[in-house]
């Protein structure tokens, strides 16, 4: 069961930060797009709170991968602010790509001594390229879809990712990822209310950095199972299924339903396995000397 401190740091404070961030983008102006720095601030702020709660605010340069993610998330917020203010797409896109490309290199730099040089560079450059491609694929979806369905889908993926990491023996990293669902739900509600686009020019960059970034962290430093990590990284991309031709107008209920069905199908296996794993763990803690902690 979560403690009162965990409820405060992973639920209450993120909700307050997210509401303030989204309110700052003036959602009461109907049919106004809320994309940009507001969504990025909500997501990055929540991640910062979770890292501070679980591991402390890291020194600079940080000694750990999660510490690097903390500072990279701050940089992503900076890019989002710049992208929102200057509205010159090329600069925002180039900075976002550079940031994502550098992420695995910084996360895994401490592993260079223990990995074969070829494997290290294959991993860092390969994962960096994958993160860039992930963002390049999702950013247009964030800019074209109105309302709350896309943030809600990402919130679902964040929760399932968190459960998968928790079931793989790392409560702190799992809860940090799951906490990202809080700002995404708030962003989704704001999107529904404003009926605008909410994740373009900043919000999707923060998601692209933190969701695949934390799954990469789970693979290397926890015992996150690779097949589930791949499914969870790919799941948001399948939301593009809602953009197929012949499904009616943009953002119609049919398109939203298709998105949800496809993404749910992608996360179903990791969800079921993780829930069963956690249930088994709780059972062991209650009934057996095999509990840990």
């Amino acid at each position, binding site marked *: 069961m979560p*403690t009162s*401190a*965990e409820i405060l740091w992973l639920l209450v404070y993120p909700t307050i930060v997210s509401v303030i961030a989204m309110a700052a983008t003036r959602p009461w102006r109907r049919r106004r797009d809320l994309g940009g720095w507001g969504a990025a601030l909500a997501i990055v702020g929540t991640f910062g709170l979770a890292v501070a*709660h*679980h*591991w*402390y605010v890291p020194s600079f340069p940080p*000694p*750990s*991968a*999660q510490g690097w993610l903390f500072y990279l998330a701050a940089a992503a917020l900076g890019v989002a602010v710049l992208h929102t203010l200057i509205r010159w797409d090329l600069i925002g896109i180039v900075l976002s790509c550079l940031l994502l490309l550098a992420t695995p290199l910084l996360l895994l730099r*401490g*592993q260079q001594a*223990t990995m074969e040089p070829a494997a290290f560079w294959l991993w860092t450059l390969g994962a960096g390229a994958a993160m860039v491609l992930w963002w390049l694929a999702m950013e247009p979806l964030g800019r074209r879809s109105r309302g709350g369905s896309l943030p809600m889908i990402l919130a679902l993926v964040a929760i399932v990712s968190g459960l998968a990491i928790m079931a793989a*023996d*790392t*409560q*702190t*990293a799992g809860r940090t990822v799951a906490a990202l669902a809080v700002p995404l739900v708030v962003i989704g509600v704001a999107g529904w209310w404003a009926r605008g686009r909410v994740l373009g020019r900043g919000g999707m960059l923060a998601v692209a950095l933190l969701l695949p970034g934390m799954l990469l*962290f789970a693979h*290397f*430093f*926890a*015992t996150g199972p690779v097949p589930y990590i791949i499914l969870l990284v790919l799941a948001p991309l399948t939301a593009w299924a809602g953009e197929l031709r012949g499904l009616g107008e943009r953002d119609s209920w049919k398109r939203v339903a298709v998105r949800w069905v496809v993404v749910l199908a992608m996360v179903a296996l990791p969800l079921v396995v993780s829930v069963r794993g956690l249930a088994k763990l709780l059972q*062991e803690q209650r009934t057996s*000397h*095999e*509990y*840990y*902690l």
Partner: protein
Amino acid sequence: MRHSILGLVLVAFLAAAPAVHAADKYKIDPEHATVIFRIDHLGLGDAYGRFNDPTGVVVLDSSDPSKSSFNFEVQTANVDTHNEKRDAHLRSPDFFDAKQFPVITFKSTNVKADGDKFQVTGDLTMHGVTKQITVPITKTGEGKDPWGGYRTGWKATADLKRSDFGIKGVAGVGDAVHLIISFEAVKA
């Protein structure tokens, strides 16, 4: 003439050499070294664990003990609480984060001796954080072993807060850690 002077200097140096006492270097014997930790569990009782196979080097300067040094190292992956699942959890990023921080080291920076009792100040590095601590270390004995070596025995205790080293862990585990260390070191 020049050769004579050089010869005299060389003779004087060689004559003086035996009087210079070199410090003795000892390697810690992992088979006879124990690092035990005690930590509060749920506020109800104590949980004990150990780090297997610690290594290190002790340099003892009997003529000037302040020039002695104590360097100690344990692998975080070697944590052992007699419960495989708990050990896996302790190696995870929730606690020691063993893949990112595979080693805990102690390197002495200052040694004060009073007979067999030493006050050793040094840098303890754990979880990517380095803090200075002072550890009372006592020499428990020395002598020849049955295998032809010469060894010394030591014991120490220390108290730390894991939060000082950025290890917050999860609820239910105490912050204060009591360490009980005992080791033998063989002359290299």
